């Protein structure tokens, strides 16, 4: 791998070539008026277990090197170009420049190059302990997967195990023609285990996992999988059944139906459930104890962000506060169109004003007298987020009776998530190892044969 911490050679070469285009070095092309690029160079290593087979042809020990990114140009005649950057962009610059010119287009609402901000938050995103692993000392990946194999297949009664472990390290270079020059390293470390196609869990952060984390993840996979192998029975309530969405699934619902309607382009173009006026009037759209926050400041989280590719500094801010719309999620173009400030980079988090009485996930389940606990559904990507309606298959639901888990059934669930997130009956429960809460909603359930 050619990337090292203090060697931004490629980015410097690209800057020099773009500045030549600004000076008009290619006489038959218009000069560049402004430019911006965001490129990352790095390496990743990975290893998998596929259908019980460690390191097979479908998941061998793997190393990948890459350099990739995107570029935005403003020409002298105000036309714009969007292009990709790869290893050949520098050696083939003149040819690429001509291609970018050929694809240049007029967009009177397109943004200018942003002036650099005085500061960018320094969020921890790089763990140097991962570097030896990424550079080839891959023994840890084997050990993690072998531990999972021993714990789940050996002692846990799992028949078929799929698992993966990976690590990566890269350096990002963000530059623009107005002097933006941000460069920093980042890393990732992941592992996950999926048992008998029933249930999976894992670890995914920007730093090496604490040793005890693996034991916790494996115990969770073993216990939940065992529950999902028991047969249960359930009588759906025709007026709506109580359904607990596990933390990951609740996050998917919020992302699909709430996050999916906060896109600046969708709002401005009337392709969202929410209109621009709704934001200007701070319309109440969800229950007043619920907020939705963009947060890029959490150290070593996958959502950590110092700056977006357009140069907007990272940070933390609400999109929905106490149930009221605050701002759509906006890039520079749609910030200009809507009149709201551009949105910081980061992950989407749910916050609940519970007066300091945060209910645990365990308590949430124990308070359900007759309902279902669902970890995963099939078909979320096929749903229409603008209507809020959902109709999903849940091939493995755990029956909850008087607060206890009593085997699994197959069901379809349907309803409207906009109604659910406004419903006073909807409750939340927190797992200390997860960033977002589980949700208990009321929806239609059809038990399948």
């Amino acid at each position, binding site marked *: 791998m050619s990337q090292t911490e203090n060697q931004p050679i490629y980015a410097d070469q690209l800057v020099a070539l773009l500045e030549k285009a600004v000076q008009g070095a290619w006489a038959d092309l218009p000069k560049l008026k402004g430019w911006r690029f965001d490129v990352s160079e790095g390496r990743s290593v990975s290893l998998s277990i596929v259908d019980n087979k460690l390191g097979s042809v479908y998941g061998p020990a793997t*190393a990948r090197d890459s350099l990739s990114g995107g570029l935005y140009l403003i020409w002298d005649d105000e036309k714009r170009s969007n292009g990709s950057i790869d290893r050949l962009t520098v050696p083939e610059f003149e040819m690429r420049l001509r291609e970018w010119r050929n694809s240049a287009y007029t967009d009177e609402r397109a943004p200018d190059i942003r002036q650099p901000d005085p500061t960018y938050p320094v969020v921890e995103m790089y763990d140097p302990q991962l570097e030896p692993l990424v550079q080839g000392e891959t023994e840890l990946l084997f050990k993690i997967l072998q531990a999972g194999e021993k714990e789940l297949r050996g002692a846990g009664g799992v028949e078929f195990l799929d698992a993966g472990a990976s690590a990566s390290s890269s350096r990002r270079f963000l530059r623009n023609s107005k002097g933006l020059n941000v460069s920093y390293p980042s890393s990732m470390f992941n592992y996950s285990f999926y048992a008998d196609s029933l249930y999976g869990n894992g670890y995914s952060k920007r730093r090496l996992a604490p040793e005890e984390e693996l034991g916790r993840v494996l115990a969770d996979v073993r216990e939940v999988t065992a529950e999902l192998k028991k047969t249960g029975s359930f009588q759906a309530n025709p007026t709506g059944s109580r359904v607990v969405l596990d933390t990951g699934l609740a996050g998917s619902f919020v992302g699909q139906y709430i996050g999916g309607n906060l896109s600046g382009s969708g709002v401005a173009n009337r392709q969202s459930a929410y209109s621009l006026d709704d934001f200007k009037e701070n319309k109440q759209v969800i229950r007043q104890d619920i907020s939705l926050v963009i947060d890029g400041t959490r150290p070593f989280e996958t959502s950590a962000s110092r700056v977006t590719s357009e140069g907007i500094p990272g940070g933390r801010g609400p999109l929905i506060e106490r149930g009221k719309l605050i701002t759509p999620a906006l890039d520079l173009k749609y910030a200009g169109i809507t009149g709201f400030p551009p949105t910081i980079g980061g992950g989407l988090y749910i916050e609940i004003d519970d007066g300091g009485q945060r209910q645990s996930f365990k308590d949430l389940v124990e308070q359900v007298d007759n309902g279902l606990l669902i970890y995963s559904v099939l078909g979320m990507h096929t749903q229409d987020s603008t209507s809020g309606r959902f109709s999903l298959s849940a091939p493995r639901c755990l029956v909850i009776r008087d607060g206890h888990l009593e085997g699994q059934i197959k069901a379809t669930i349907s309803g409207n998530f906009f109604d659910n997130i406004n419903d006073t009956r909807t409750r939340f429960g927190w797992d200390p190892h997860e960033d977002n809460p589980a949700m208990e909603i009321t929806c239609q359930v059809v038990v399948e044969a």
Partner: protein
Amino acid sequence: MTPYIIGGPNDTVGTEVRFSEKETNMPKKLRVESYNEAVDALLKKADELGVYAIGRIQDSRGRSLSVNNGRLERIDTGSSVGIGVQVFTPEGHTGFVSSDQVTPESCRNLVETAARLARSASAFGTETNRAVFEIESNGKQTIATDFKTLDETSYDEQVKTLLGANEQARGYGNGLSVRSGHGISDPHWRIVRSDGTDISFDTPHASVGMSITAPASGGKPATASASVSGPDSRVLLDEIFQERLDLRTRKAANLAQRLVNAPQIKGGSYKLVIDYALAKGLAHEAFGHASETDGMETSILGKEGIMRVGEKMAAEFVTITDGPVLGDYAYQPVSANGMPRQTVEILKDGVLRAGLADLFSAGKAGVPISGAERIESYRNLPLPRMTNIRITVQDPVKFETRFELVTPEELRETLLANGLLKEGEPALYLAGYKGGQVNPKDGDFVFNCAAIYDLSQPDLPLYQPAIFSGKVLAALHSILGGLGPLHLDAMGHCGKGGQSVPSSGGAHSFVVVDRNENVTIGGAS
């Protein structure tokens, strides 16, 4: 040049599209053919190290345009070049590396790294596979299409036409919001192996899509979509495609407006009539994935790792076929391991006949290699997967009306007239495919439709889309028949193994599925 039909050989009722490859000297030069020195270095290094190597070079270029409510939103161009190298030790241990540098020096380094990974993995008891040592060379070949290249496609014409289509769609209702997208991708591939195989090919594909959102007006906003696909920019610029897209867009616009206030269907098991796009979804999700041999140890179509070839899986008039169709959105003539892609009758006359089999798992599954391996990019490892999958039935009911012009009323009348529906019988017509998902290990599948019509009522009330879920074998056994000609252009993307590759397929215009307790429509209790 021999013209061919993308809509299928029987698609002769107005929706047929014929592509004549343009009159130039064939085959065209593929960009990947310029990497001879890198290829030589790769194979020589593998030989020196005593390992078998497969190199996969990709040189991909693409262009996409988007228009939103009459305004050009953006144009993106992209290019990507790289190589993936998979090596096998004589014992069958394997390692994989990829890089975006395709030079002799980088290739030598890649082989060294991959060999080191494979050898170090052996210490941990990793799975071995020696299938590569048992195949013969497929020689040196170039299999090039000659569709319009990106260099031959005018940006101005694309922008003007897409703006026009968007404007036209906005006129199909009050307050409609329309997002239009057009993408073209032109990947060139070269697969080389230590046994002398050196095959170059291209897989061009293009599409145009319309997403139409109807305003709430008392209900909740609703979105419906329409698309066409093919190999190049003609999907946008050719009059035949323009007309087809326009008919589909009108239908989608009408549907989005009606869905705003449509009620929810009562959930349960019904007799179902599905259109060809949904039937492609059924074939893809409910059967195709289960027939991929890499998962045969856990697939419902396998028993102790062996494919259940010879077993009856559906009525004797049902056949399911997968194979490449030139000009199709998912066309691929050669596998990612350099094996020729076969057209496979997976299910023939209701009996399981063959699998979608890759080099590494075909033998274990007890079926011949069919060259089914595909990859999203040079960074990925090959997996067996579908290209164009279709369900056909013997003696389908003749239904001449052009698919885009069929109304639910006409469909109901045809079903009644041909004994596929009885007056008042509970039955639903599911229209428009919105994607699906499957767990091949236990046979659970789902897919979603764009709309539901109640065929038991003469006025055919419209209901909200609902998930269609079930068990693979139950759904296949319940197919009662088909109506109309074959259509093979239901396009999508398949996300198996985290890799997104183009997929397509189809069926007769409509397929009838009998009521089955193991096939359920989600809805109200």
